[in-house]
């Protein structure tokens, strides 16, 4: 099996799907001739032409508005927002239009749109090249939200996202764009949205993460094991739909949970997971659900290492939770 990094896996998925389905179109800033600032769309315009791989003017609202019109008309657009930090000019189109089209039209119009965007910190991007805004979209019914943590998942999840009948925001953790390498099957395979992966079975505490932070969680779990703490690690992969059964099954078993995310703590998705767990596993809980997250500040530049909820902080939370 070929070894790829996340960018290559994304590129592979896009190419395969564009070959299979003429309705798939890619649009965004610098995605065409150049192939994207992270090269995720490299070679696509050369293969599929400027009609299906389009460099747009610099306006995210226009990109998503136009992609929405394409999707309404029956295409399967894949829009790229150059950085998740720059998705907000399209926020109205995403939250008020894309998310509500199916409902408000009584099912007469749908928006099978995929929005790809590099997200998260760890690349020295400071305030505006590091944000993790997933919670904003998870609070918006009608949207699906996916975050891969490996090249293998990136390809299988992106293919599912493009074929999904509903709009999907596909966050690509740019910190692991090149860092995460792994075997990726050739040809197509689908990873269904809404299935978490139990990447490490355990009995003492449930550790929940996604995207780049899964790698930190995994390292923390290894270090915990060395200390005799038996961690069950879940990679959510898809946050909406959420695999709530996998979470509750694990917490009912372990009685303890630690949630990890990069975004600021207040109103992050960790809050929702914490609420869901204590609503559904209250009698099994032997310790409060712990949140290891980014802090309630803008994303910093120099103090990035301190800001990110990395393995050492996760490990401390695991210790505290099992000894609560």
């Amino acid at each position, binding site marked *: 099996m070929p070894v790829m990094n996340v960018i290559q896996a994304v590129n592979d998925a896009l190419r395969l799907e564009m070959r299979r389905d003429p309705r798939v*179109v890619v649009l965004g800033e610098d995605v*065409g001739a150049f192939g994207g600032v992270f090269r995720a769309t490299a070679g696509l315009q050369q293969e599929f032409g*400027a*009609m*299906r791989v*389009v*460099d*747009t*003017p610099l*306006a995210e*609202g*226009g990109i*998503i*508005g*136009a*992609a*929405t*019109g*394409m*999707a*309404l*008309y*029956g*295409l399967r*657009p894949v829009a790229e927002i150059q950085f998740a930090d720059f998705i907000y*000019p399209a926020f*109205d*189109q995403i939250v*008020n*239009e894309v998310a*509500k*089209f*199916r*409902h*408000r*039209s*009584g*099912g*007469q*119009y*749908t928006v099978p749109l995929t929005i790809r965007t590099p997200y998260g910190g760890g690349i020295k991007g400071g305030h505006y090249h590091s944000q993790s805004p997933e919670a904003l979209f998870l609070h918006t*019914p*009608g949207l*699906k939200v996916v975050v891969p943590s490996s090249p293998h998942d990136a390809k299988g999840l992106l293919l599912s996202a493009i074929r999904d*009948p*509903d709009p999907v925001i596909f966050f690509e953790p740019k910190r692991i764009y090149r860092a995460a390498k792994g075997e990726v099957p050739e040809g197509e395979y689908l990873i269904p949205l*809404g299935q978490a992966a139990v990447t490490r079975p355990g009995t003492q505490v449930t550790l929940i993460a996604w995207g780049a932070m899964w790698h930190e969680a995994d390292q923390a779990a290894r270090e915990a094991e060395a200390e005799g703490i038996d961690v069950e690690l879940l990679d959510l992969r898809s946050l*909406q*739909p959420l695999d*709530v059964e996998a979470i509750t099954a694990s917490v009912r078993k372990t009685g303890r949970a630690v949630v990890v995310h990069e975004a600021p703590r207040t109103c992050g998705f960790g809050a929702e997971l914490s609420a869901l767990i204590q609503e559904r596993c209250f009698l099994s809980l032997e310790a409060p659900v712990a949140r290891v997250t980014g802090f309630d500040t803008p994303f910093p530049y120099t103090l990035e290492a301190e800001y990110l909820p990395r393995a050492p902080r996760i490990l401390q939370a695991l210790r505290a939770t099992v000894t609560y």
Partner: protein
Amino acid sequence: MKRERSHKPPVRADAGTAREWAPGRFLAEFPIYRVVDEDGKLVAGAELEMPEAELLALYRWMVLGRSLDERMITLQRQGRIGFYIGAIGEEATVFGTVAALAPQDWIFPSYREHGAAFLRGLPLVTFMANLFGNAGDIVKGRQMPCHETWAPGHFVSISSPIATQLTQAVGAAWAARIQGDDMVPIAFFGDGSTSAHDFHTGLNFAAVMKLPVIFACRNNGWAISTPSASQTVSETMAQKAIGYGMRGERVDGNDLVAVWTATRRARQRAAAGEGPTLLELVTYRMEGHSTSDDPRAYRPAEVVEPWKRKDPIMRVKKLLAARGLLDEAGEAALREEVRLELQAALQEAEAFPPKAPLASLFEDVYAEPGWAQREQLAELEGAIDADPRVANPRHVEG
């Protein structure tokens, strides 16, 4: 998308004084296109391209649209529907444009173009059921009245957020080009909407991609209480096309024939690959913004007066009369016919059960309801079983 500048830019040496526009310059450069004057006569040099049968048919539609608006406003005052927003005085901008399109052309409405949906086959009953938001509502009572959708006629879902439909229309045109379809979408919006983000991105994207789109700006002089002169100091809306390298045109929006002819030309150009057009349809909002608005608070009655003479329906009536296509008897018969049609539709629409089933709230959020929607439906059903007040509206508005 790369393009080469064919012309070498000239250079000047006189100390920089930025271009100021002589007052009236763009009014002159964008004269208002008119075919039928306020007395129903063809203006000098104009000819009637619209077939007389079409003229008569559209006259009836305009009368129906006007009568519907008036009737529904009364209905709202009676408290039988919660809200209404119509197009009184702007009928020519709605019927004239859409009648000039091909049946496969998609319509991206703002919220006054109900008439466009009727032209595309939306039954009056279905429209009225949407006003009641009852079980007959094709959008299942999910949006406010006047937010209908009619996919069978390619009439795209109405939403409240201003101007979002412009970029969506651009995307549809783009998709049609990719598919090789002969489809020219039209996006409707008002003068106030030209200030919105999506006006800028919509026109720019369409021009850069040279897409077949018609941007129909109903310049009715007002955005709720804000006059169009406070939205922009450009003398016309049409000249905004210049900034996008796009075609722009001013049309008498109260002249059905001019609107129809200009739209037809725009559609021909678009289909021929000549790109988008911005049509400024100069009209006037004769009533309040909607039933929620009382214009007396900000608009003296006098300013409306001069526009009464320009009424789009009167104009066509006079033209038809002059051509012997409609006499008083015919007019009376037509109006009675329309009255009965509306009455019948209203009765039928009001007869539906007041609410779509509870489950409809949780459907169409996603193609398949997720566990949250399924659990919450069960939760709500249980709550209502335990206490019927949970489903009692009086309890809310009280």
